[in-house]
Structure formats: C-alpha cells, structure tokens
C-alpha cells in the first residue's frame, strides 16, 4: 500500500540520517576503500562486489545490528507533520505535568544550593585534582561530610505527583460502578490485559523452556539447558543482535550474559569509546559538581548498605560521576518526555547565550539511582565497558521509570497496568487492602521505579532484566509486581494495616521470578 511504502521510506531515510553521523559509517567507508585492493572486486560490478565483501567479512552484520538498535530505541515517526514535542510525549497534559515536576525538582536543587552556599559547579584546584586522580579507584574510602545534603527527591514524592495526574478532557462522572478504577492512578491509558500479555510474552509460556525454571537441579540438563546454552554460543558467534534479543527471552546462561547484553545493546568496546570514557574521567577530575555530592550520598545510603552490592562501591562512583558529565546522553531527550534542566551562568539569569544544561547530561539523580548500576557490576568489570552498558540501559529503559509519559513502558502505564491486573484478577485482595488504607501501589511503586534492583536476589534480578532486554519493554515489572501480590495473597488478606502489609512484602530476596511470572500469566484461572 502506498501509505506503508511512504512510511517505510521515511523510516529508512531517518535511520540513514542518524547512522551517517556515526562511527560505523566512517568505518564502513574506510573498509569499502580498502576493499578496492582486493582481487575479487571488479570495476564492472563494483557495487555488487563490495556488498558481497561486506556480507562475508561480517560488516553487513554490524550494520544490521546498528539498524536494529535504532529501530528499538527510536520511536517510529507518527506523522511527518508531527512537531518534535510529540516524539517526546504526544499528550499535552502529560507534558505539562512533567514540566511542572521538573520545575519543582530544579527549585529544590537550587534552594539546597543557596542554603549550603555551594556552587552548582566549580573548578577544582590543582592539588585537589591530583588527590582525586590518585584516589580514583577507591573513592569509596572517602568520607566527606554529607549530612547537610538531602536527595533531591525520593520515589514516594514522585508517586504523589502521579497520583494527582488528571486528563482534563476525561470525565467519568461521579457514579461508581464496577468499572471504576479503585487504584491511585486515575488517568485513562490503554494497558494490556492478561490475554494480551500472554500473547506478548508467549515465550514465557508453560510449553517453552526457561532459564530460571528449567535449569533447576531437579531437571536433567539434557531436557533444555544444554541445548539452550549451545544456541546461545551460536548466537554469539554469529554476532546477530536481533537473534540475541529473541534468544534471551528464555533467559541467558550465566557465562554468556555479559556478551549477550552487549550484543543486544549493540555495545562493542572500540578504542574511541575507551577514549571517550577517559575524557569524561578528566572532566570529573577537573570540575566538581553539586550533583557529585548527591551521587556520593545516594551510593552511601543505598548500594553501600546492601549485602550484595557493597563490594562494588568504587565502580559506582566511577560510573555515575562520569555519567553526569556525559553530554551525549542529552540525545535521549528527543524521545524522553523530560527535558534537561537549564541553568545560567552567575549573574546572567534568563540570557539564553549563558544557559547551560545542568548537570551536563541533564539527569538529576534521585534517592536509589545508583541501584540501576549496581547489578551491572556483576557482569562488567572494565570501567569503560560497564559505563557504556549502563548508559545504553539508561537511555533505552531506565529513564522511563522516572519521567511522566503515556508510553506503554513509562512508569505511569506500569502503575496503571499493575493496579488493573490486581483489580481484575485479585479483586478481593485489592478491595481488602484498599479498605485498610494500604493501596497496593504504595508498596509496589518503589520496586518498579528501581526495576526491582536491591529487592530481588541478584541472580533473579538478572533473569528479570534478561526479559526486559528480550522484549524491549518494562511491562514485565508491573506483571511481576502483581505476581508477587498474588503469591502472598493469603498473608495479605489477614493484615489490618499498611505497616503490616509492608512487613509481609518487605523481603523479596527468596522469590524465584520466573515461576511467579509463569504462574500468574499462564497458570491462573482467569
């Protein structure tokens, strides 16, 4: 059909445009020039021969992976005339809400700044620079006085904003019916129901093998595990990004996970990447930012206190401090409903020529932010690779967990999905919890905002994040949250207060993620 063709042409044009500026393009060009030396390249059939060469040498695969990566990350253009804000967020009321939330955060940051009389940024004196360089690998041993710093916001503050979100064009009347949504989120977004989720997550079904279930000690490895590992090794040797993404829906073997994730995220450590990371490190050494103290505080409060992740404290600083100075992250704001906060050089408030993004990457960390990085330390040990993986995970997934948007993987949709699943399939439980003042979302919100990091055992968390990568969606977080409530429903029905409900759900470290998901999606009578 003509419309589809022109849509496709538009998509292709956009992707070509994006890739033209990338390193891969320069490499392909170089390779093409170099290939002219080869005997099989003939002038008469130059184009065909070069294409053939690319196919054999694996460069076509790399291009394929890059294109696939772009398709995954960038939303497809809805209409050629749509303004750029629509790419960020099509609904006006969501944009407005995000805007005012950002204003609040910035105000809070500025007031902390004025209160403590600390500049947002300052150049470090040479002595301090040297000291920091020496201590780069053990910044965790530093004990700066952070008592006056407070996190800019915590997940529960964000939840309050989401609870108050309303669509001004939507009026469902005062009458309560069985359709009335009993939860905290009161915006009419489309979320999947269980039949749709079953279709979406078909590879998690009862008839397919899963890592996290079929690799347990009781199951002989010949039934599933051995073959699955073999296929994983094949996928890695083919270096096929799309195949890896399909493969990982059934879980990744421990030994292959680091490489598989890198393949799916299309990360390969080139010398330029290492250089870029070193440059960021230099930025950190030379300038001190106020957000650095926020990062320190967050790491000390969360990751350092964690039984599993305390070991990786130093890596967290090395990643997060560099992250806040990385201006390439600004690129993701094209499809993020959030916008980077702007700050002005002292004395030049309001003058656009003196505006800078603050922090340079436009992301203000909140309480628990460092937990996005901590599980990755299990897989990657080289700072620049760890950094790249985290950055890609952030600009593909994590940013959606703390910005207000209508995207199906955005936190608002996840909350609504969670509440809808609970209300539809566990109505008695939902009603009971609501009656005792323990709205389920108040408990599960923090799990979803952190993508369950710090709540699940590490091996279970990695199995969960395998599926996030595999399905390129965060909806599984909402499904898991509902599955956890379903699992502990019996105990929850007996509690009589919010505190008691919190206690029942305080410890998730013994949970096995995949069986819970399977039972909830495929084995519960609906």
């Amino acid at each position, binding site marked *: 059909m003509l419309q589809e063709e022109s849509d496709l042409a538009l998509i292709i044009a956009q992707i070509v445009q994006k890739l033209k500026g990338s390193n891969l393009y320069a490499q392909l060009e170089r390779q093409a020039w170099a290939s002219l030396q080869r005997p099989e390249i003939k002038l008469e059939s130059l184009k065909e021969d070069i294409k053939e060469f690319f196919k054999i040498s694996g460069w076509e695969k790399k291009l394929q992976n890059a294109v696939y990566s772009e398709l995954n990350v960038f939303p497809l253009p809805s209409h050629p005339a749509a303004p750029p804000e629509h790419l960020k967020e099509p609904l006006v009321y969501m944009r407005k809400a995000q805007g005012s939330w950002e204003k609040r955060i910035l105000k809070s940051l500025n007031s902390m700044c004025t209160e403590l009389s600390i500049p947002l940024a300052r150049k470090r004196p040479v002595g301090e620079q040297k000291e920091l360089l020496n201590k780069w*690998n*053990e910044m*965790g*041993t530093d004990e700066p006085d952070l008592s006056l710093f407070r996190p800019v916001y915590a997940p529960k503050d964000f939840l309050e904003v989401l609870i108050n979100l309303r669509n001004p064009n939507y009026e469902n009347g005062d009458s309560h019916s069985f359709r009335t949504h009993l939860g905290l989120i009161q915006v009419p977004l489309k979320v999947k129901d269980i039949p749709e989720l079953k279709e979406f997550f078909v590879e998690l079904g009862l008839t397919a093998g899963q890592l996290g279930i079929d690799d*347990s*000690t009781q199951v*002989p*490895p010949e039934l599933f595990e051995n073959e699955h590992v073999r296929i994983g090794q094949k996928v890695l040797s083919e270096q096929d990004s799309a195949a890896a993404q399909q493969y990982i829906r059934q879980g990744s073997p*421990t*030994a292959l*996970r*680091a490489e598989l994730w890198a393949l799916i995220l299309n990360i390969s450590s080139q010398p330029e990447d290492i250089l870029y990371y070193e440059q960021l490190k230099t930025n950190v050494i030379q300038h001190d930012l106020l957000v650095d103290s926020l990062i320190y505080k967050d790491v000390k409060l969360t990751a*350092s*206190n*964690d*039984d*599993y992740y*305390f*070991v*990786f*404290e*130093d*890596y967290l600083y090395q990643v997060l401090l560099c992250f806040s100075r990385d201006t390439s992250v600004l690129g993701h704001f094209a499809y993020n409903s959030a916008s980077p906060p702007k700050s002005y050089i002292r004395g030049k408030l309001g003058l656009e020529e003196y505006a800078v993004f603050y922090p340079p990457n436009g992301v203000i960390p909140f309480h628990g932010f460092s937990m996005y990085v901590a599980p990755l*330390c*299990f*897989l990657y*040990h080289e700072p620049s690779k760890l950094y790249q993986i985290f950055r890609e995970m952030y600009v593909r997934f994590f940013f959606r967990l703390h910005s207000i948007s209508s995207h199906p993987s955005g936190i608002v949709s996840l909350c609504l999905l969670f509440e809808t699943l609970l209300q539809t399939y566990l109505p008695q439980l939902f009603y009971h919890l609501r009656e005792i003042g323990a709205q389920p979302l108040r408990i599960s919100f923090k799990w979803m905002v952190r993508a369950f990091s710090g709540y699940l055992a*590490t*091996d279970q968390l990695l199995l969960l994040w395998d599926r996030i990568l595999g399905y390129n969606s965060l909806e599984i977080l909402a499904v898991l949250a509902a599955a956890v409530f379903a699992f502990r429903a019996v105990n929850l029905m007996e509690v009589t207060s919010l505190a008691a409900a919190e206690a029942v759900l305080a410890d998730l470290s013994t949970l096995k993620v995949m069986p819970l998901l399977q039972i909830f999606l495929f084995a519960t009578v609906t």
Partner: protein
Amino acid sequence: MGGSKGVRSPHPQPCLSFPLSHSEGEWDFYWCDVSWLRENFDHTYMDEHVRISHFRNHYELTRKNYMVKNLKRFRKQLEREAGKLEAAKCDFFPKTFEMPCEYHLFVEEFRKNPGITWIMKPVARSQGKGIFLFRRLKDIMDWKKDTRSSDDQKDDIPVENYVAQHYIENPYLIGGRKFDLRVYVLVMSYMPLRAWLYRDGFARFSNTRFTLNSIDDQYVHLTNVAVQKTSPDYHPKGCKWMLQRFRQYLASKHGPKAVETLFSDMDNIFIRSLQSVQKAIISDKHCFELYGYDILIDQDLKPWLLEVNASPSLTASSQEDYELKTCLLEDTLHIVDMEARLTGREKRVGGFDLMWNDGPVSREDGAHDLSGLGNFVTNTHLGCVNDRKKQLRQLFRSLQGQKKTPN
C-alpha cells in the same frame, strides 16, 4: 547434654530428645572448648555411645607450625611413592618457616627472593591477633628484640612460637577488595578417614582497597571479621558474601569450567590436608570435629590454604550468617546421629555432602563431567544450591519407611 557454647536451633528439633545436663560428668554429648579438652580428656571415661566435638590432638592440623610439618612430611612421602607430579598437588600452602627454630632456613629462602613480602603469624592465636607483614630482615630483627625484652620473659613464660610465611601478593580481588573463603569440613573419623563438606560458606571481604603500599595497615590485609570489626570503615551490615553468590560471580566472569577447576582444587586441599595428619591424630571413635578452613584465591584462580580452625566462630554477624550457622550445626548433629537413625550409607545429609569415605566418593549417576576428560566426578557441591530442608524431609521419611519394613 552439656554444652559450653549454648547455641540453640530456632526450629523445634524432633531429634534433640536429650535433656540438657548441668552436672559435670553426666553427659552423652559435649560440644566442648579446646581448653576443657586439654585438661580433662585424658582422664574422662566415655561410654560407647558418647560423642565429643574435638579430637584429642587436633592441633596437629590446626596449629600452623604442626600443620606445616605434617604437610611437608606427607609431601615427601608422596614424592617417594607416587612421583613429583602427585607431590605437587600438596603445593597449596605458601612457603612457611617455623620461628625461631627454622630461622636460618628462612633467612636462606629470604635471600633467594629479595623484595617479596612475608607475613609473621603467631601459631596459637586467632582472630588476626599478633600478625604483621614485613619485607626487610631488619623489621624482624627489631621485633625479635622487642619480644625478648617483654615482660613475658621476666616471668619465665616461654617465648611464643611464630611462623613466617610467604605473603600472597596477587590475591584475587573483587571490587578492588581482598577476601578469603571460610569453608566447613566435618570429620567423623580419621582411621578410616571420613569427611563431609558443607555446601554453604562465605567470602569475607576486607573493608579497604588492596594495595601493597601500606603493609602496615592491618585492615587492608587481614580479612578476619574480628579485625575488620575494629576498622574505622566497618559497616555493621557485614562484609560477607555467601559462597553461592561468589560462585555465581566467578562463573559469570570466567565461565563454568574455570570455576569447576577451582572448586575441585579446593577439594584437593581439604582431602590432602586431612590425609597429611591422618596418622598423627589419635583416632577415637567418640570424637568428631567441625573445622573451619580459610582459603585464599590468587589472581590465577589458584586456591591457597591459610589455616584450619578447630573451633570456627559460631557467632553470627547478620541474619544470613545466623541461618547458615544454625543450619550448619543442625546438620552436624544429624550426622553425629546420637539417635542412631542413619544407616551409615548416606552420601548426603542436609547441607553436608560426603566428600571422602576411606577413598573418593562419587556423585550420583548422571553427573556432569565438565572437564570433559572422563575424570572422576566428586560428590562435593561447595557454593551450590542447598535445599537441605527438602533433602532432610526425604531422607528421614525413607529412613522411617525402612525401619517399618522388617528386613
């Protein structure tokens, strides 16, 4: 049942049907202190069924100077009987010299390897007390003078024995930190040798980052929790990882084969160390012993034996730790089997796997041989899943069944 440790299990124990005894001499089972043992064992009469938690001369294994002697002797014997390759399997103990009697041998070795770091440890103390590092002979000259002029000499108390040991300068680091492993081995008898390996254990991390620049900083080099507790950086949340986590971490970094090799090298350490003292330890059917092995891994994934503890600490530093230690004790009591419920042919009881039964013990049929060499697969599962409750239920149910059918 008398006990000086006073550890209780949180679960109601059907097997603890013995009343607690408070009077001296009236006991069937004693979890005793080594000091009590020293004073009383030799003139205590024990009935056939009585059990006590130490071997009379356990120090052959647990005191560093004795252990070194026994190991060296065993190694020589192996070399005579089975050749250099077999003897090399005993090279898991860093070069050690007893002080002051082997001082001259030590100086010779020292001069051969200038610049390496040595560690001085008192033979009989624990919890990291009295340990220090040195690189120059001058450092220990000063120390020798200091100890000589101490008050101990005046009171005619003999000078404490020390060992000087080659310090492992390339330990495996996680997050820039040094760590060692604590593993539990239960020996039910030496003649014949019957030893069980517990699946759980933990890695103890040093709080500060590893560097060879600060050999004076005890906190960096000593991973003992007791020392770490006094470090200004100490976070009570604990600096331990359960072995399962450690095993998973290594597997994701080095692959399952390398991990299999490492763990089978550790099995080798346990068995050889026990074999080396087999003839020296007075075997007494009343005795059993739960050892705490301290293992250090270096950057080439080679495990080294630091020491063996006869009285591993049973105090808990965290909830996870508490669970591990109570389950460990419960399973120990199951194996000691005061109620005579077991058949004696079990290969697994709770979290313990039978590692050596007068010879290697093989795993159940269908075991995975990852080395691919068709080698013998041992029955050890260190750092693996420990579904002990389920296993115990199944075990005791089948034992009940066996009792009912007269055969």
